[in-house]
């Protein structure tokens, strides 16, 4: 049977008639044409499909459509404000661009969603080792391009904009001199 599933997506109400077994990932991509959420493995392993479900990062490949009824989903498309032509980027998005935290970009939506949650939950505030905390909280998002360093720099800069990021490892990312010698 098809099930009518009504849920919030990026602040708007969406209703779809789908199999309850359909993955949230496929509902987003196929029924709602929100293709920013990517499939990297279908196993809950890579995190490219990460969305917020009721404000918490989850792998949308492991969520059944029926389980979303009455809930709120945020995808990467919901992070920025402004228009598609002139997006006002979320701080995490801005820093990922500025500091080289996105390369091929296929893992980036998942990382951006997870990192935005990390910023907004205040998980890094007061953390004794913010870089280690970022690595722990983003460990469900696999990136094969960056070696993670510049992503960590970007997330720290977005989450702790007032100076704690000044000590970011070797991070000169985005400041333009790149440590060239």
């Amino acid at each position, binding site marked *: 049977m098809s099930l009518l599933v009504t849920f919030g997506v990026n602040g708007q109400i969406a209703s779809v008639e789908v199999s309850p077994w359909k993955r949230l990932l496929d509902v987003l991509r196929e029924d709602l044409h929100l293709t920013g959420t990517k499939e990297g493995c279908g196993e809950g392993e890579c995190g490219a499909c990460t969305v917020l479900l009721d404000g918490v990062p989850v792998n949308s490949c*492991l969520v059944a459509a029926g389980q979303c009824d009455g809930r709120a989903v945020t995808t990467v498309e919901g992070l920025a404000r402004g228009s598609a032509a002139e997006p006002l980027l979320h701080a995490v998005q801005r820093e990922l661009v500025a500091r080289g935290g996105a390369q091929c970009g296929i893992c980036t939506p998942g990382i951006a969603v997870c990192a935005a949650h990390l910023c907004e939950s205040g998980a890094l505030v007061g953390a004794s080792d913010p870089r280690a905390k970022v690595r722990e909280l983003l460990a469900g998002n696999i990136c094969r391009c960056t070696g993670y360093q510049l992503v960590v720099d970007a997330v720290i800069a977005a989450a702790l904009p007032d100076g704690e990021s000044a000590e970011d490892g070797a991070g000169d990312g985005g400041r333009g001199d790149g440590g060239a010698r």
Partner: protein
Amino acid sequence: MTGYLRPTSLADAVAARAAHPDWLVLAGGTDLMVNAPHRPVPAGIVDLWGCAELRGIARDGETLRLGAGTTWLDVVQSALVAAHAPILGAAAREIGAPQIQARGTIGGNVATSSPVGDSLPVLLALDATLGLASPRGRRVVPYRDFATGYRTTSLDADELIAAVVVPVPDAATRLSWRKVGTRAAQSISKVMAAAAIHVEDGVIAWARFGLGAVAARPIRAAAAEAAAAGRPADEATARAVADALAGEIRPITDVRSAADYRLEVAQALLVRFVLNAGRS
């Protein structure tokens, strides 16, 4: 096509399960939805995710009661768990990654009963019990009798897991936990060990060792426990525990690890637990 029921109470859940014994009972989906497009489409789904009655952690006398739908994130964030069953919190923190912890449930881990289920050795070491519910009523079973073989349990066809109940250990009980996985996070276990060791005046009164990924199901290491009981928590006892363990487990070689390594590391973990218990 797929039927779908979303009970909001345990009673409704039990009724739904009884009415549709062939339907998939789904909670967080972190196991049952892996590679979903390649799985047979279930006849129907009994979705427990929205069943608030099944979710939550409470102190109940000398026990902690965790609803079966309690997520690992709930466990990680629980002050009760941190205070009374810290090794359960430690295990929860090492399950998958935050996305998995937000969805995976303790009841799901118990029901799936994978030999690499990350909380299961902890439940063995803590001597947890399970609250099971069916139209026939409720029963309480010790967790140590629940897993019967490779991904098989003694759960009846019309039963649901309602709660996991963990006795609060006393101050003389040393708790230990270690997961040895394929990598630092988002990893499948190669060897897991958990221990509750009751130490009085430097002597081990009793010990419970729970092990994972070394047999077809999570197991208690009875011979190793016997080798520890009544002995001082020292090097000689630790060696005796390791020797006893070698006699009672036969780990396998698979794509993730090797039999000899698994045995060696399981021994090393128990040795460390015994020595740490003696030191603290």
